[in-house]
């Protein structure tokens, strides 16, 4: 018999017998594939409570495990079938922390396309719920810093500081964070795009405006990188933002 969502079962628990007799009845043929049972007793029921209590996570209670979300998800379909939103929701509600941790290496890969949320027949805000699960895991120290979280933080810090983001600074600042040696000007300490180390493909791409003599584009972006565009009446508002984020435990 076919096993649906085979990726959820540890391979060593799937056994195929040559010949199988149960209570004197020969059940070989279609019935010779067995999933060995397992015992689970470490449910953490408080874990789900924390998700239910957050405004963007409360719809987790509506889920009836139909798997429409997983069937729609491009990360599940085109990247890694271990990425399974329905299953993450199931595990989070039961509080099966170690099972969640086993999947920590794929859980962060959601690209926020919201197909799952869109298609869910029960009105679960699936994408939001998944992000709350990750947030809660991070808060409890159950998951390592993962790349997209690092980027999200980096991005949000820039918003907090200036009120606006700037593509060039974001790009080169991020490259620097990845360990590349980025050259900065001595006065404003801003990255200089054409110097220092950059991945080769990006270097070529950055050179394009120069090659096509697109001077006005270069000047505009250079100006923005040097003098980060900022929202004018920002200071007072920034403090409120900081306060709110502190309350949520979002500032570290």
């Amino acid at each position: 018999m076919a096993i649906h969502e085979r990726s959820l079962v540890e391979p060593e628990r799937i056994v195929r017998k040559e010949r199988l007799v149960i209570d004197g009845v020969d059940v070989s043929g279609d019935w010779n594939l067995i999933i060995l049972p397992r015992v689970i007793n470490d449910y953490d029921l408080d874990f789900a409570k924390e998700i239910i209590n957050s405004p963007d996570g409360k719809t987790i209670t509506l889920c009836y495990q139909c798997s429409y979300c997983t069937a729609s998800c491009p990360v599940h379909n085109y990247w890694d079938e271990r990425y399974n939103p329905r299953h993450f929701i199931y595990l989070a509600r039961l509080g099966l922390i170690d099972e969640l941790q086993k999947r920590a290496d794929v859980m962060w890969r959601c690209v926020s396309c919201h197909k799952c949320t869109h298609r869910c027949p029960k009105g679960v805000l699936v994408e939001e719920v998944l992000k709350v699960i990750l947030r809660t895991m991070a808060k409890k120290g159950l998951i390592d810093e993962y790349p997209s979280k690092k980027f999200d933080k980096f991005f949000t810090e820039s918003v907090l500081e200036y009120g606006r983001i700037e593509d060039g600074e974001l790009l080169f600042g991020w490259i620097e964070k990845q360990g590349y040696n980025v050259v900065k000007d001595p006065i404003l300490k801003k990255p200089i795009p054409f110097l220092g180390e950059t991945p080769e493909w990006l270097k070529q791409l950055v050179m394009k405006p120069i090659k096509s003599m697109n001077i006005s584009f270069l000047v505009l972006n250079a100006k923005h990188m040097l003098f980060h565009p900022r929202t004018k009446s920002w200071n007072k508002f920034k403090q409120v933002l900081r306060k709110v984020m502190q309350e949520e435990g979002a500032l570290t």
Partner: protein
Amino acid sequence: MGVIGKRVAYYPGCSLEGAARAYDVSTRIVARELGLELDYLEDYNCCGAMESKNITFMGTLLLNARNMSLARKQGHDVIVAPCNGCSFSLQRAEYFLQTDSKIFERVNALLKEGGVDPLDKIPETYHILEWFYHEAGPQKVKEKTKRPLRGLKVANYYGCLYTRPHFYARTYSHAGGQSEEARPRRRETADDDEHPYYMNALLEAAGATSVEFEPMHTQCCGGPHSLSDEQVSEKFVMMILQTAKRNGADIIATECPLCHASLEMYRHRLMMKGVPDVDVPAAYFTQLLGLAFGYSANDVKLKDNLSDPLPVLKRLGLA
């Protein structure tokens, strides 16, 4: 027609003032030609895009509420945004503010504390494409077209968040089969959720031919991860570009600066790796409409496009 209003608050979002300047410039051209008026939202802030919402729930709501408050101050009930990420963020805020009075009150109190006028009313957000379609429409585009995009085969790429999720975008959902009454937030201007066609319709009215592009037209480009999870983004962009190319597209039309940047960046990477069938360039749909309205390649800033659609357009005598 005429549901949204001819004069609206225009929220360009950060990238349209920098790397996506071409989108801003061409959007203004198209709006002017179609007899619509954009009122620039003064001193706006970043919407938090797809990133901040993963870090802070209240903080992201506040960011968007501040922009809404600015729109109200400028006398608007409607905000249009040309970016999928921005319109998503604003619509998401709209959703939480509308459906939860406690959140609404808290946000208003915090706005006040931060020196911003509290919201007397929650403005509605539309994607700029929706606005163009409903306030001008294909007929008007046809009238204004001086140089039809004849012979140009376009793959219309909508990206993921333009129609999704229906809770925020207030589109119809094909799943679930809820009754009309169960979907009070659906709006009549919304594009079809699984088969959006507004961009097809506008570009076809300007003389272009749409090529078969489903289901990639609403497939995610991996944008939010384009810097942090390059493998996934690269794979998604490859699928999009190859589908377009193999269906005969000369060009991909985009309506989001993030999708556009992601497509161009990874197109370049894929081409360097020698992956076949990925050499379709991208252009904002407003750039193409601008060309059709008789503007030059320079006017719509075609040189800004890193994927270089100029040769294709020149060959067809369109630029």
